[in-house]
């Protein structure tokens, strides 16, 4: 290590520390970029979530055909659908439970659904105090839900009730 | 002369020193012995303060605790193997040396309490000694002072020479 190298090192240290201090000091006066998630967000959190995000599952019971495709598709069997038959009433569902504690949000159940009844909703804040509360029951306890019968194929498709669309994507995402 | 406050301080310091000394002398755990040095050094520094040698007291703290004691701790921890908390510090010939030491302290005590010590004057209040020590070191005691610094330099060089591992010749490719 030569003598000039020694003093150069000292000079480098001094100038770089000085420069570093100016940079950190300037950041002290800048606006923080943090989004203070639950309560101080620029718009409701559900609006900030992108359109096709995978969060909680919801089943629109009035268009569910009880085809059990979603139950079969689920790789970890978290969907449980019980159907019964009764004279005069026909086939009806007594249980449509989704155990969200097990669900891994793969989205395989939404694909085979003929009417788009089972779909993701942009909502994810559902912390509960017990695992039991994580089970979503779409058929009320002891209730009976008669499945939706899709119209015949020769009928125009327009008459089919439109599957509920995913919520509209936010027009502007916050930029800060 | 000594106030009751100083009596109290003396009693407390004596307690610390005796406890630490016993730990050093009798503990089977070498690490405890090394840490107990802290108590002994602090206690003696306290005695120095009581005896009006404030500069020596601070130097005692600075050199003994800051330097020597941490050196000892390093040596103890490095030579005993990290992770072995229960290392022992065996003693030999305790049965022979304990009576001898008891005899020694009885003799010393008898000597201390029977001798007519020369006490020049009633010891005065604590006066700052720093400036006087500085003056004395650079005038009357200049030669010992310089010799001490040469000694320290020799120690430094000797220690480095002793402690470094064998020099390896690094071949540059």
């Amino acid at each position, binding site marked *: 290590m030569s003598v000039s190298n020694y003093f150069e090192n000292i000079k480098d240290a001094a100038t770089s520390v000085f420069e570093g201090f100016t940079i950190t000091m300037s*950041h002290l006066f800048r606006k923080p970029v943090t989004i*203070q998630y639950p309560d101080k967000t620029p718009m409701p959190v559900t609006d900030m979530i992108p359109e096709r995000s995978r969060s909680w599952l919801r089943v629109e019971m009035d268009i569910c055909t009880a085809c059990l495709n979603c139950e079969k598709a689920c790789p970890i069997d978290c969907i449980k659908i019980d159907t019964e038959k009764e004279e005069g009433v026909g086939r009806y569902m007594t249980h449509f439970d989704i155990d969200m504690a097990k669900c891994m949000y793969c989205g395989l159940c939404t694909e085979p659904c003929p009417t788009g009844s089972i779909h993701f909703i942009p909502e994810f804040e559902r912390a509960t105090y017990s695992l039991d509360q994580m089970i979503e029951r779409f058929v009320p306890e002891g209730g009976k839900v008669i499945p939706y019968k899709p119209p015949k194929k020769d009928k125009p498709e327009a008459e089919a009730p439109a599957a509920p669309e995913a919520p509209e994507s936010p027009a502007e*995402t916050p930029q800060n | 002369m000594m106030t009751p406050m100083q009596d109290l301080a003396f009693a407390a310091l004596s307690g610390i020193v005796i406890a630490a000394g016993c730990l050093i002398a009798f503990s089977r755990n070498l690490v405890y012995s090394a840490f107990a040095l802290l108590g002994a050094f602090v206690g003696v520094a306290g005695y120095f303060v009581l005896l009006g040698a404030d500069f020596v007291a601070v130097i005692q703290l600075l050199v003994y605790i800051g330097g020597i004691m941490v050196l000892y701790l390093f040596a103890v921890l490095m030579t005993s193997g990290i992770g072995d908390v229960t290392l022992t510090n065996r003693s030999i010939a305790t049965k022979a040396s304990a009576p001898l030491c008891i005899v020694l302290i009885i003799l010393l005590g008898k000597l201390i309490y029977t001798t007519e010590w020369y006490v020049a004057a009633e010891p005065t209040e604590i006066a700052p000694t720093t400036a006087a020590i500085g003056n004395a070191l650079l005038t009357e005691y200049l030669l010992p002072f310089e010799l001490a610094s040469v000694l320290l330099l020799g120690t430094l060089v000797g220690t480095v020479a002793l402690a470094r591992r064998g020099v390896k010749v690094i071949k540059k490719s």
Partner: protein
Amino acid sequence: MEQLAITIHENYLWGAPLWAVNLIVMFGASAVVLMLFVAPFAGITSFVERRIAARIQDRIGPNRVGPQGILQFLADGIKSLMKEDLIPTDADKPLFILAPYLVFLGMFTTFVAIPFSSKLIVSDLNVGLLFIFATSAITAVGLVMAGWGSGSKWSMLGGMRAAAQIISYEIPTGLAALCVILLAGSLSLQTIIAGQGAYPWQWYLFNNPFNPLAFFILLASLVAEGNRAPFDLPEAESELVSGYNTEYSGMRFLFIFFAEWANLYIIGALVTVLFLGGWQIPVGVSEWAGGVASWFPQVLQFLTFFLKVLVFVFLIIQLRWTLPRVRMDQLMEICWKYLVPVAFVCVMGVALWMIIWPEGLPWMTYLLTAVAGLIVAYYCYRVIWQLRNTKATLEFNPFV
């Protein structure tokens, strides 16, 4: 202190012996300093450090507990108090328990010699400066004890590193302080302050061209002795989990951290006393304040001192987020190859300066003050330049 004890003895507690009153006053004073100053200061510093760190990283930081999160430190303290006191099974129990108190003792004893104003000082020791350096050595022993007592390899390495670092950096600290001791001719902190004036050109910092160098050496080595970033190898999170305090929890952990934050104040106070004129306020202001009330000058002095200290506390916190951590070999290289030789040059330079110009050079002090002012102005200019010209190109929305 003694005056206070004598006053109490004569006026209020007839019959009680003086030494007992003295003892009570001594314990009372330390309790008051501890409760009313050190604890809140350490706590608030912990909060302020987190906020500043957050803002430097473009975050917000803790802002939920109380207005702007100012009560966060109370919440943390209560949380730590209520935590379970864990002692690892491998730990050396007596040492593990004793170590935080030693660390704390080494830090807290330092406050004995630090002056807050011209009268507000526990004891103006005539070896004050050495006393401060000596007691900080107890902290080193405490850290080794914490490292050994934890019975964990991370703690052990952290403790050894801390001790090696503190011992090494005591040398440049002492040498840099020696520059001021030469000028003041005393080790007493009050005498050192009395040798300086209220205005910058009367400070020891600008007394001669060597003192600014000594100032930076002292600041750097004190930061290293306090185990602060960028010299925080003993508690390097990325290597040693958390160093010597890895195994501690609850109140004991708090004690170690308490000492660390109070240490920030000690660093600032030492630098302020040695180089920046301590609590000195202009004579005119002092006289005017003395006319208002007898205690008013003391308050002004305390505020002056405290403000100067806070500047350094802020600088050290900012330094933590400015420089990356140095390696162990770099740490030793900085100490032995750069700080120590330059500090020796400074000591020799100051000594020569005092021989050649025993009265000091007035124009040199003005010149150095002006240069320092220019550097501060350039710093402000650079900060504004950075603000305007380096846009943070962070389109930062995690949801998009």
